[in-house]
């Protein structure tokens, strides 16, 4: 996966040198990648664990709106941010509990939650953006550290943390086990229910965080923010090599998948290819990734 991404980058850079200017790389590609990566890290765990979460887009929007409203209600900014994250955790936990306790199909439960969370946003905001938000709050995302926007640093740190959790902890191992074969995992003494709840709560928190960062960047919390982005995130995770059947995938792959989808749309914009074509190309690449996954699975279980 790394090789095609690099190859692609070189070709585009050759055609349009703007592509590798510092401003484009940092401000456009890395910045937009960071927003998707934060949520995609959680989604990677969800999908390795054999699930899927369609509610992240709405939870992104909800996180930003809750934090925005709290700030407007004169609650201190750090507390407001925590409240936003907390709401993300609660919605994720409800996803997890429902999936575990009532044995609901993750795709249906989280689809329902997608509507519920979006509905709550619209009821509370009446569809209007929450703004203005104070400069101190805006500066969180808009400031740079060592020439990189804070959101990039945050996404990087979170990725390193998740990489550690995935490869070095018992929880990480349990995630692979419940995605590979939940019944074997349960009979081996792994608490499948708790593991799933933690995964969905975590993903809810990450989605809310991405939404809060976006509210900070725009200086306003948009009621529609995140709509449809769950699909882009799932696509990036799958392109990064996470199996749609659960049980396999890596954080590194997800980073590459997110970078790739963002580089792709950025470069196509620079090459003046219309938005409509971009959507089509991403779709084709996603199908290719799924085909590849199916092929790998077939090969590994053929004997």
């Amino acid at each position, binding site marked *: 996966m790394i090789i095609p991404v690099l190859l692609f980058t070189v070709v585009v850079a050759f055609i349009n040198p703007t592509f590798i200017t510092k401003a484009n790389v940092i401000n456009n590609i890395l910045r937009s990648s960071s927003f998707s990566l934060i949520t995609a890290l959680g989604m990677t765990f969800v999908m390795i664990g054999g699930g899927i979460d369609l509610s992240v887009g709405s939870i992104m929007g909800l996180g930003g709106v809750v934090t925005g409203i709290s700030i407007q209600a004169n609650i201190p900014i750090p507390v407001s941010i925590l409240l936003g994250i907390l709401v993300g955790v609660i919605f994720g936990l409800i996803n997890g509990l429902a999936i575990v306790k009532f044995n609901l199909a993750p795709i249906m439960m989280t689809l329902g939650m997608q509507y519920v969370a979006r509905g709550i946003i619209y009821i509370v905001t009446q569809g209007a953006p929450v703004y203005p938000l104070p400069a101190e709050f805006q500066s969180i995302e808009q400031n740079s550290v060592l020439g990189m926007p804070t959101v990039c640093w945050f996404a990087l740190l979170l990725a390193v943390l998740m990489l550690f959790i995935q490869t070095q902890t018992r929880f990480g191992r349990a995630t692979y086990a419940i995605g590979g074969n939940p019944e074997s995992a349960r009979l*081996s003494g792994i608490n499948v229910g708790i593991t799933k709840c933690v995964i969905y709560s975590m993903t809810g928190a990450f989605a809310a965080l991405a939404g809060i960062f976006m509210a900070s960047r725009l200086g306003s919390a948009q009621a529609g923010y995140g709509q449809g982005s769950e699909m882009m995130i799932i696509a990036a995770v799958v392109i990064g090599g996470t199996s749609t059947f659960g049980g396999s995938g890596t954080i590194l792959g997800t980073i590459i998948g997110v970078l790739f989808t963002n580089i792709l749309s950025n470069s196509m914009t620079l090459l003046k290819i219309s938005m409509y074509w971009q959507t089509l190309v991403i779709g084709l690449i996603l199908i290719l990734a799924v085909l590849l996954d199916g092929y790998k699975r077939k090969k590994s279980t053929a004997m």
Partner: protein
Amino acid sequence: MALLEMKNVSKRFGNLMVLDNVDVELRSHETLAILGGNGAGKSTLMRILNGTYPYDAACSGQIILDGKEVYFSTARDAEEAGIVMIYQEINLQLDLNAAENIYMGIFPRSNLGSIDWKTVKRGAEDILQNLGVDIDVNIPVRSFGASMQQQICIARALVRKPKLLILDEPTSCLTETETVRLMETIRQLKRQGISSIYISHKLNEVMDIADRIVILRDGKNASAYEKADFDADRIVEDMIGRSISNMYPKVDKTLKEEALRIENFTVAHPYARNKNIMENASFFIRKGEVLGLAGLVGSGRSELLRAIFGAIPKHSGKVFIEGKECEIREPAQALRLGLGYLTEDRKLDGIISTMNIKENMTLAILKKLSRLQVMDHKQENAIAQQYAGSLNIKFRGINDGIMSLSGGNQQKVVLSKLLMSHLKILFLDEPTRGIDVGAKNEIYKIINDLAKEGMSIVIVSSELAELLEICDRFVILSKGTTRREMDKDEVTEHKVLHACSGLD
């Protein structure tokens, strides 16, 4: 006259030569058994023959059916040419009825192009009656037992008018009585002119049914015997390439105090509503004892063990471990109390196919291998290597995928997973199903060694001969409860079968 000739058949997977110039001939009116250890190439050969593995560039050699060279690229091609396979796993659509299952894919059409249900129903009834099976073909097959489902699979094969029937381990989920019935069916088919190729690990069965035996080893022809020359020891030797002096090793040991006692266990039926598969079952086991739970398939043997282990809910019943009453609601609790359960079907709920060998081994002791969630990879590697050594698990690398192992080695991996958590009591549900003779012998040795060290082991096995040999005492399940007990010195196959069928 040969019905089928396979000449110099070879097949490679990548660089791996799984079949190397194999010759097999099947005469008409013959039942031929193909034997071999895991990885000998039996299944691959059969899959080439029936088109599941398309005959492609990785294959070479000739396949001659009825004097004509044939090469199939799908199972359907093979079926149309008269080769039908009955698989080890029962692959019926459980929610469809028998008639629908039997005619699946070849439904007769009426003039209007819709399915001619009348013919379907009558045809299914006829063919089942020929097999001596009298069932209502309108009932979903889920409600039938494994044996009946197997018969439906055979009916489905026969309705395709085969010249040649391939049976791949057809008895792996049948009991002895059901096996006898299947053997009778095969003989009857032979009289009607249908030749069969029979594949099984169960030697006594094979020697009973086969007219001729072809033995494969490491993808090559090892030997072949006519019925008159069948000799169990030589066949086993040819299969594994060495001799086993002691199939069921014996041990001297003294039995000590009670380890586990079960009182009045009642467990709900997994499929039927408001029905119990097990009622008021009670038994006990001493330290160092090997206890056999004998019962027919569907007698609730697995369900009883699963309920004790906390894998499925129980209605009522008490568990005492070393005299102390314990409440077990989840497998995790059972494992903490030193009680382990090796499942009946390792692919279904034993191994995790996406994980590697090491990860499968250490799954039950992740807590012990980590501090504050952080895993100690060094210790994990060390303990996995140690158990791989002591259980003689053969692999190229311990980080290879579990699916790269043969069935016997996979079973040893699942077993080592349990042993690592230092158990006092071990439930083994069909511990030798689908593994070759050599690996079986090793599993028996492991069981003996564990018992000698004082572990209590409860075994469920459909292979009665095996059960009688390795157990010290027997509890017989029939009519949904623990019917009676037998000691080693009073037990015979006949007595156990009699008791299992509820005839005593």
